[in-house]
């Protein structure tokens, strides 16, 4: 809306006397690709304000503990204390939480990608009875929010004897219909002709999937993988419910426990929070081009 408030108006021949601002209907014509320096500066200021929480987190993580609430607030404390990071690490078993989080997120992501690729290919390309019906069932479950399934999922884990276990952290959310749905849409857009020659040559479907379809679908699979990883890594409510020993805590549950336990140690808590953000931030910055396109294509929006 505010896009062109500061736009430079291209000079338009008018009959108005020089000096009076041009007021004709044509004043609106603007070159839509020309840089807009004022707009850019304002946007950068907005971005800076927006980043304050991140800036404050890193700033606090580097201050001595007794300067966290110093008044007036300052960005840099009397010293830059990198030791906060190692102290946070030993204050709580944070390394353990990071490893747990990694193991769970990587296993979950692998599982989601493999099962979704196979099922999506079946729905997109293979002929079998009941295909449309089963796919409809998948679609319907997309509407049901995870939170609604938490209690029955907990009871299921109890029945299986899996509470407080890695499989309880990984398996319950590895079979949502989302990945299958996303990849099926992508596979449907790949021209069939590419596969037909190989079919005639007698290649198996699995072979065709891995050597023809997957290379083309790599961006879509990458998007699915990154978002699945992020979801596992950031997930809070489920790990909070299903784990009760620090041996199995993931990073968000660990941070929450840290808060309860060491409420006043904000410099250490912020150091831990900063570390917790690194994996996803790095991933997103590295893959930024893919992600923006992937969100457009998959509609992962709306959080």
């Amino acid at each position, binding site marked *: 809306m505010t896009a062109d408030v500061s736009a430079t108006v291209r000079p338009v021949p008018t009959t108005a006397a020089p000096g009076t601002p041009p007021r004709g209907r044509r004043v609106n014509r603007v070159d*839509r690709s020309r840089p807009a320096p004022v707009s850019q500066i304002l946007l950068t200021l907005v971005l800076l304000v*927006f980043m304050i929480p991140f800036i404050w987190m890193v700033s606090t993580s580097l201050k001595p503990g007794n300067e966290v609430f110093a008044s007036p607030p300052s960005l840099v404390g009397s010293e830059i204390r990198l030791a906060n990071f190692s102290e946070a690490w030993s204050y709580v078993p944070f390394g353990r939480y990071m490893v747990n989080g990694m193991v769970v997120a990587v296993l979950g992501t692998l599982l989601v990608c493999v099962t979704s690729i196979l099922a999506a290919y079946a729905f997109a390309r293979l002929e079998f009875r009941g295909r449309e019906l089963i796919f409809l069932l998948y679609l319907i479950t997309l509407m049901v929010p995870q*939170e*609604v399934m938490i209690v029955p999922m907990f009871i299921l884990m109890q029945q299986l004897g899996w509470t407080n276990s890695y499989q309880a952290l990984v398996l319950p959310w590895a079979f949502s219909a989302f990945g299958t749905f996303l990849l099926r849409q992508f596979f449907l857009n790949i021209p069939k002709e590419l596969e037909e020659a190989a079919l005639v040559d007698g290649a198996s479907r699995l072979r065709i999937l891995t050597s023809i379809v997957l290379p083309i679908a790599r961006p879509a699979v990458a998007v699915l993988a990154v978002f699945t990883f992020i979801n596992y890594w950031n997930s809070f409510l489920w790990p909070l419910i299903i784990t009760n020993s620090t041996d199995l805590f993931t990073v968000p549950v660990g941070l929450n426990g840290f808060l309860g336990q060491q409420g006043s140690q904000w410099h250490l808590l912020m150091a831990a929070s900063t570390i917790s953000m690194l994996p996803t931030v790095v991933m997103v910055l590295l893959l930024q081009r893919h992600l923006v396109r992937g969100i457009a294509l998959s509609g992962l929006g709306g959080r």
Partner: protein
Amino acid sequence: MTLVAPAAARAATPGNTAAGRRAGLTALGFLAPSGLGFLIFTLLPIVGSIALAFFSWPILGDHTFVGGRNFVTLVTTDPVFFRALRNTVIFVVLYVPVNFVISLGLAVWISPRIRLRGLYRVLFFLPAVTPIVANALVWRLMLQPKGLVDDLLSSGLGLGPTNLLGGQVSAMVCVVAMSVWQGFGYNMLVFSAGLDAINPNLYEAADIDGVSRWRQFWTITVPMLSPSMFFAAVLTMITSFQVFSQPYILTGGGPGAATQTMVMYMYQKGFQFYSLGMASAISTVLLIIIVLVTGLQFLGQRRFVHYDG
């Protein structure tokens, strides 16, 4: 959804011939890993969630069928349920429009005339991918008494010491503000993609006709973007009804029950008071509300959404 079958597959109607049976087996092989997990870990819990609401089901011990008693308890004697319901609705009513205005505004602002627009987009999107618990923690640090915000308000503006997280109204405002900060990036990216897909000739033609920027926004941008907006509205609404982590970390639901939400209450009932049946009843009510609201949105879509690319 309909597929034109390749010649080889068309000849074999599934199941009727040897080739068809083989095709069926292949399909089964592809579908089994996902399908089996889907059956156990998606379908079963969904069906179970509704059934459980009719049981008294303590975490340890025997469960018994109690009919609609959980629901009756919730609406008649439960002291917190309606408060949590009301808070959740207030949250949704505040969160969704603010999220939309900011995400759409920024998507439009980061136009092709902005250099490095990809970088701006990703930076505004960052809090959506960093752990929500870590995000909420730093907000809590900034908002609590003697924190950054309090210091700026009291010494900077002379407003006296503030306790934003401790006020009935201000606590909810904080939860909404933090949630918007954290969450609008998704919609911003969806809208950005939608905007990039609009044919620039439309704007050029409007420029030539002397249509003002403001009118162009309402007569070109909004209609062309309405499919993305509808889609984003449905998803944002669904996720915002499930708000949990932000109030849990920021306020713990307080002060009193001022920021207690339905999912928080479900968590409390189920996993702090160990009554899984009651927790299921709460989540069933939540599901019904979400289904109703989504249904209404789909009904409204005919009037407001413009489909023809």
